[in-house]
């Protein structure tokens, strides 16, 4: 689970990446696009889990990268692209939810690709995605963010606390509550289906 984060953070420090950032700071849009490509999954998928709709997640991603472009110098100085991106993504998702409390119902949209040709497996995967989306929706905003970053994105408690701007103790408490709720929801869901 830590692979994603580790990979992203390891890439943060390479010379090549520094050169790309430098070029992007000078206005090279191709260089900036290379940075976007590197982090687009991190931003889009995190946003998707937090807001529950791909269209909203794309809006959030767009804004995150525009902010990144404006703050490249500052973010580079922090030497932690992933941390900055998680923080801004979470904040923008919160802003979006505050502006539009009634979120669009989560649908198993065509945006999700199944790599498997087996129809039975595709159905299982589709159901899993639906359960994931539904179980995230029952959580409070902060619990959801904590669970997504800690359990789905694999950040450490410390990193989650930094991204959410709260203490580690608070994160532990939120994650604990969120896990219990999700566990109960999933159990109920499958019990009802049997």
């Amino acid at each position: 689970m830590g692979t994603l984060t580790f990979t992203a953070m390891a890439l943060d420090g390479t010379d090549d990446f520094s050169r790309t950032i430098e070029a992007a700071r000078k206005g090279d849009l191709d260089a900036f696009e290379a940075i976007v490509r590197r982090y687009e999954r991190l931003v889009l998928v995190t946003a998707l889990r937090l807001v529950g709709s791909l269209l909203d997640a794309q809006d959030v991603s767009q804004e995150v990268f525009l902010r990144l472009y404006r703050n490249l110098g500052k973010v580079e100085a922090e030497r932690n692209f992933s941390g900055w991106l998680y923080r801004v993504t979470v904040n923008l998702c919160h802003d979006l939810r505050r502006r539009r409390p009634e979120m669009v119902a989560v649908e198993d949209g065509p945006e999700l690709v199944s790599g498997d040709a087996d129809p039975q497996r595709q159905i299982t995967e589709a159901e899993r995605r639906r359960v994931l989306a539904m179980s995230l929706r029952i959580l409070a905003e902060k619990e959801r963010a904590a669970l997504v970053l800690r359990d789905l994105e694999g950040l450490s408690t410390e990193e989650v606390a930094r991204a959410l701007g709260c203490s580690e103790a608070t994160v532990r408490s939120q994650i604990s509550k969120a896990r219990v709720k999700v566990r109960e929801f999933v159990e109920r869901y499958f019990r009802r289906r049997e």
Partner: protein
Amino acid sequence: MNCREWEERIAGDPEDPGVVSHLADCAGCSVFASGLRETIEWLRDAHREEIAPGAYTAVRARVRSRLEARRRWGWVWAAGVVAAGLVLGVGVRSKMRVEELPAVVLRVPGAPEVKVSAERRMPARKPAWRAGGSLHRKAEEVLVKIETGDPDVVIYWIAETKGDY
């Protein structure tokens, strides 16, 4: 602490020594812990599933077009600012130049020499009511001739001296 209370502790940190010790003694909590582990793994797998590449492409295209538009507008703004600066600069500079201009010395070609001569053109006619003579000086007409430096230009005019009446 009952099992319900243990659940949150288990969910918070399953590796905690106190939790591990409780799990060894409590079958119900062990079931909950393994179920929780499975659920998280299951959700994690769902989370790992790929999103269609088109979703990323769309975001990239939107970001790029916004940045390009901003750059275009940036140029327009920059050009506007430069133009405004130029206009302002020229205005200020011209104002400063007016203030700093040295006194203008006009070199006017010398005026033509004028020789003024006046001669009595005709004796003033005595009005009948003055014919008897008076102590007052009478108005007289005077022909003024101005000769300029140019022999072809001579100016004449008739003037009248003021009388005392």
